[in-house]
């Protein structure tokens, strides 16, 4: 070895060393990626977004039923059955019926008979939800699937 005062250069990286470091890196990265999946729950500890509202016979033409525990209103006529959400589109309070219309107690939004915004800070009309049928014939409302207003499902 020379007796220099210069710092010695780093020896050339070998394949083995690089492979080791990179493998370790992948292992660590893989662990982090795996762990990052944990906080997003695969099931929610609450009642689901798809729920049955009853059998088609329970909603004859002319029905206008408010299902309070699901925050949904189900109406039926000759065209079939439709469901409208009662969750105010402003900040999520539950609207109350006001004659034929709906009023939100939180910030004063008002919605018409079909959910259209009549007044108030609400930016969008009330959502209409998809209605379908389960295998045994009961009507199912899906709160995560929005449809055009006045979309009816023919049972």
């Amino acid at each position, binding site marked *: 070895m020379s007796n220099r005062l210069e*710092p*010695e250069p*780093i020896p050339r990286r070998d394949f083995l060393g690089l492979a080791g470091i990179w493998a370790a890196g992948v292992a660590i990265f893989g662990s982090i990626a795996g762990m990052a999946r944990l906080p997003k729950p695969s099931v929610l500890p609450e009642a689901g977004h798809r729920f049955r509202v009853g059998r088609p016979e329970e909603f004859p033409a002319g029905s206008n039923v408010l299902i309070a525990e699901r925050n949904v209103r189900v109406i039926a006529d000759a065209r079939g059955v439709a469901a409208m959400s009662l969750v105010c589109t402003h900040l999520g309070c539950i609207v109350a019926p006001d004659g034929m219309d709906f009023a939100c107690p939180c910030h004063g939004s008002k919605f018409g008979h079909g959910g259209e915004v009549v007044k108030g800070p609400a930016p969008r009309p009330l959502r209409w939800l998809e209605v379908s049928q389960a295998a045994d014939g009961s009507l199912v409302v899906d709160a995560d699937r929005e449809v055009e207003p006045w979309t009816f499902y023919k049972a």
Partner: protein
Amino acid sequence: MQNAGLAAFFENVRNLPASLKGSFVRQGPAVSDRARSQTVFSNVFLHLHSTRVHIRSLRFSTTMAMGIASLSLFIILTVTGILLMVYYKPSVDQAYDSIKDIHYVVPTGRFIRNIHRWAAHLMVVTVLIHMARVFATASYKRPREFNWLVGMGLFVLTLGLSFTGYLLPWDQLAYWAITIGANIAGSPSELTDALGITSSFDPGGFQKRLLLGANSVGQEALTRFYLLHVVVLPLALTGLVALHFWRIRKDGGLGRPEGPPTTAGKGAAVPGSPGSAPSESPRKTYGLMCIVRDRKSATNIDPADTVPSWPHLMRAELFVMMVCAAISLALGLVSNAPLKELANPGVPENPAKAPWYFLGLQEMVSYSAFVGGMVVPLIALVGLALIPYLDREREEAGIYLSGGRGRRVAWQSLLFGAVAAVLAVAIPVRFGWLRTWFPSISQLWIIVISPGTLLTAAYAAWSLWVLKRSGSTRLSAIALFTCFLIGFVILTYVGSELRGPNWGFYWSEGSWPVH
């Protein structure tokens, strides 16, 4: 004027990437050993390392990597523990169900929980082996006595963490194990009852109520144990770990055999040979950034004996961490952490067993709670803590069992300790003990003459005899430590495998009676 200001502004915006990076990275990439040393020295995360390490510190046989293994497992436990905290609920109504959900539906939950449980068991094992290694290589001697005490503190904290975590699933295993543990904390009342003074002086009751927040295990206990497990003990442990590493630096590095380095075998110290260590280990290291050839440092560590930490030490540390991770993951993949029925105060587990590392104590507790729960552990801890202060012979660290004589003493002590432990179990099993023969004898007699006390006394007597015969405190320390080690192993085995319902002795689980 405005133009210059605007120009400067836009110039700064253009330079953002470079100036951001420049403010964050104080040095360029390390392109030489000196630059690497500089980085290690000045980086907030890395500067706990010294810039160079002695070549023999890196040898596997010097440390068996147990210290780094313990730290790696602690990191694994912290990370998996934090993840588990996202879903675990420390309430007696919800704890059990939340663990079930972690196992069944939480993404990666089952795997993470298994890893956490296995790493916890492994950490207790590595910490024990680490303590044995440090003792065997006499790495507790001056100037490292205080670090030995810090290590004892870490040992107690590790057991505490494992014990507090044991309760959290709130199943039958947890509930009854902690009931036993709390009653052990309350065991001084055995002594105060026998003396008739409990109504005025009740440390046992005090300890138990402090632990449980009530008279029996319930929501209060769960809250306290949770608090201890996730906040108090981890913080304390982190603090002590930092102190532990800092003291290694200040005490002159890891205990290792001195003497000229050889390419084959351990370098045995031959006092007086060229290059051998002086009789006084240095008390302080200096931070060195770079070694220049042929200038001896004031610390008497020959720079030629050292290699840069980056890459050698850090690569070795990463290797050990990866091995620990691989083992924890493998165990977590194939073996599920146990979960029994929901905790039911009306249905005691039979046999109700403490966590494995306390089973040796539970063996002794079965004769006298006070002896097994308080006396023997205290004697053991105090005895261990005092070793560096009672064994002051000058000796260099790093030679296992200090050479031939030490090894002989160790073997003899192993034999003696094993026989004594087996007798301490076999005699009461076969013949009963004091209360079998004298049913109304005062509990004081049982405390004084209990298998645990007698075993401890036997070990102490053996160690004193070795001291007298050999004239060396180190050899007598080896004798005592080895006895306790083998006693611990044997009693733990007995408590784990040979004890069945009502703590009866059974050679195998197949012969347990059905209740």
